[in-house]
């Protein structure tokens, strides 16, 4: 095979949803045994294109060549039998099944034509776990696993099918910094084994770290292509957003006008299913400040939110100061953030008690305000929120919560799965709200985000703050000491507290 020839080739691939062109005449190629990144904003068409390649969607026109032969998959099984597997943003696991059962589902080995042969599969699986150092127990139930472990199960599902081409859709957005490193290591192993990896992302550092080739999509079109040697981050950033002005957080911090405490919780001990979730947990948040909470997922983040919102009962300790109103942008926008079947306007109105009667015009004007003020892109004011892309759903929920104008605001992973422009936009508004006298709790797994926004930063480990740092030291630090500080934070996050 000619080394310059492509393993996968997209030729004028187009796909429309309604009247919206998600992929518009896309033409480019992916070389074998390389890591090819596809980068772009939310709704640029990255996921759509990869869903076509993995057999979930069908393209309206154009064709796709694999090894020079045209392919036309009817469903994901066709893709898998051609060696193409995809890791989706939303996990597709059966929580009540074990790791092993999840992995073999659809590929079960059978003895005497009806009995499941788990032992054989288990050996294969254990070998895979050992080989890639995934550190999972094949017999543990999936509901017991953390998000990063669940992702490993998904990766195992891919590996078990012995594919040639891996597609990852924003794999690191749910991982903490250490877990990201681990993930990179696994991906590099794949490459040394001769596999081809396609990575959908909008993290620029990820591209620098991993990519051999890069394709930038914008509004469904290929706008820029390059390879590792000619990688120029500023150029790529401007190609992604389509302008030379890279968005940045511009809002300056004003001096706090008031030191009024908005929320104070003392010595909270909370257990769920006999597991201690909050362990002598103390927190105080004042108006005019952003208190950032960083930590590996599952160390008490969701319990803090539930505690403040009054969703949990039967805890020891006390909440000695409660804010009057609480806005919350929850971690899981689909499960906790909105009613997907309702339009934006309806979601805003059902949240506030401002209007009792929802006339068509009230719903429309309410929706339009959020759409224009928070730059939400949607097919129609009346379309249900499930028709919006993830980033636009996030902007709509964010806008809704800001508009409530509550004294206390909780943001959990506010920019997860959101593009660069929107991230800067959201960060600016969070700081504006801080300056306007709001007390803000920011829970995030994104260190950069925590460092950019926080006045104080708490590092959460096993249900309490193992360390608290002032936010400005981090912002004022020079490059070298910043590296050291970040390294220390990483250590605190896994419970190592040596200075």
């Amino acid at each position, binding site marked *: 095979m000619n080394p310059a020839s492509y393993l996968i080739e997209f030729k004028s691939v187009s796909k429309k949803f*309604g009247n919206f062109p998600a992929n518009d005449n896309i033409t480019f190629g992916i070389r074998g045994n390389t890591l090819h990144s596809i980068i772009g904003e939310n709704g640029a068409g990255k996921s759509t294109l990869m869903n076509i390649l993995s057999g979930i969607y069908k393209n309206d026109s154009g064709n796709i060549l694999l090894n020079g032969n045209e392919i036309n998959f009817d469903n994901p099984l066709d893709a898998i039998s051609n060696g193409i597997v995809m890791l989706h943003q939303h996990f597709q696991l059966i929580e009540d099944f074990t790791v092993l059962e999840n992995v073999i589902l659809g590929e079960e080995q059978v003895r005497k034509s009806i009995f499941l042969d788990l032992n054989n599969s288990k050996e294969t699986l254990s070998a895979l776990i050992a080989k890639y150092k995934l550190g999972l127990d094949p017999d543990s139930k999936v509901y017991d696993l953390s998000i990063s472990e669940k992702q490993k199960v998904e990766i195992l599902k891919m590996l078990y099918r012995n594919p040639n081409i891996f597609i990852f859709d924003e794999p690191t957005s749910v991982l903490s910094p250490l877990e990201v490193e681990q993930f990179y290591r696994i991906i590099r192993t794949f490459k040394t084994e001769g596999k081809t990896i396609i990575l959908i992302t909008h993290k620029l550092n990820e591209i620098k770290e991993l990519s051999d080739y890069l394709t930038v999509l914008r509004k469904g079109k290929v706008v820029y292509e390059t390879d590792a040697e000619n990688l120029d981050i500023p150029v790529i950033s401007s190609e992604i957003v389509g302008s030379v002005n890279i968005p940045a957080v511009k809002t300056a911090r004003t001096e706090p006008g008031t030191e009024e405490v908005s929320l104070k919780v003392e010595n909270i001990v909370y257990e769920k299913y006999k597991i201690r979730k909050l362990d002598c947990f103390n927190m105080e948040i004042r108006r005019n400040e952003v208190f950032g909470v960083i930590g590996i997922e599952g160390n008490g983040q969701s319990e803090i939110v539930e505690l403040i*919102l009054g*969703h949990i009962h039967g805890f020891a300790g006390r909440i000695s100061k409660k804010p009057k109103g*609480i806005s*919350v942008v*929850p971690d899981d926008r689909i*499960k*906790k*953030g*909105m*009613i*997907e*079947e*309702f339009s934006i306007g*309806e979601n805003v*109105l*059902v*949240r506030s*008690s401002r*209007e*009792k*009667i*929802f*006339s068509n015009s009230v719903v429309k004007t309410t929706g339009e305000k959020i759409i224009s003020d928070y730059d939400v892109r949607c097919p129609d004011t009346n379309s249900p929120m499930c028709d919006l892309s993830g980033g636009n759903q996030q902007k709509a929920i964010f806008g809704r919560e800001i508009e409530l104008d509550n004294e206390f605001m909780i943001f959990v992973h506010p920019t997860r799965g959101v593009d660069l422009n929107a991230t800067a936009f959201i960060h600016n508004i969070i700081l504006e709200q801080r300056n306007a006298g709001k007390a803000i709790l920011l829970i995030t797994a994104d260190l950069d985000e925590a460092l950019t926004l926080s006045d104080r930063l708490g590092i959460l480990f096993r249900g309490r703050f193992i360390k608290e740092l002032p936010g400005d030291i981090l912002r004022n630090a020079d490059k070298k000491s910043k590296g050291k500080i970040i390294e220390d934070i990483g250590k605190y996050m896994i419970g190592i507290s040596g200075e």
Partner: protein
Amino acid sequence: MSRKFLPNFISVTVSVLLTLIIAGCFLYFIGKDPVMVFSKMFEDVFGTGYGIGQTIFKTTPLILCGCGLALCFHVSAFNIGAEGQINIGAFLMAVIVFYLDDYIGYFAFPVAVLAGFAASALWGFIPAIIKVKREVSEVITTIMLNFVAFALVNYLLMEKVAVKSTVRTPEIINSLFLPKLSEYIPSLQGSSANITFIFALALAVFLYFIIYKTIYGYRMRSVGINPVASKYMGININRIYILTFIIGAGITSFVGINFIFGYKGYYELGFSSNLGFTAIAVSLLAKNNPIGIIFSAFLFGILDFGGLAVNNMVPKEIMLVLQALVILSILITDKLVNKYITKTANA
């Protein structure tokens, strides 16, 4: 609703035709002439004022009970205990009005209706509170409470209030009977259709407004669609669940008004004849939309009275088959029609 009206209309029409064809084959195989059976049915239902009136009379309780259930279904409470709720409420209604009408005359009517509503609501409160406090599926509790309701009503009726050697309560005084529709539309002469029908229509329109145009309705549906998100949005999901369930269950008691005050003047054992179950289909067929329920209730009302009309020509089981076939074919064609319409709209 307007953007969904056309596909719904098409799918119902297609499925009614489909049902007639299948049922026609059925009739043909058992040696009946389908054309004759169907034409007799349609003639009796639509051909005479009496037929139309009787169809309206059969439709009224289906609208009322369907609306009550729709409320429950909107908060995702699969209330299959309407049959029990209806009987508890209607029985109490008849008993109270019997004891009070001599003393307070007309006022016995509102008192009885309120008491009936409260009794049915209580019968809904039990599964609702058990669900909220103990997470026991309302499907199980409501069906069990059906048996309890039957036994309780049976006992109280037979032991305490029944007219000797009957299975009914004593009759109410004449002045408490509701006006018949035929008083206003003489051509309906002879039928039992009464002003409860107008009340049912008004209730359906009112509930449509509440469910789709007010914050209460939106919150109700939020709780039904996504309770977790509703909780994060600051909605008291338990309160809304319980309130909606008891109001929905309470509304099913209105079925008793049509029968007691509009028709017989007493409560009779077995008067509801599985209405509480038919109404589940009525509501689901209309996607729990009260305006749609008016139409789906009519469909079942037509089949019900039409069945009586051809009683002596075909076995009565054929009407049950017909009802089931209509539901099945609507469910199937609904998907197909929607798919076809979105396809042509995009093309």
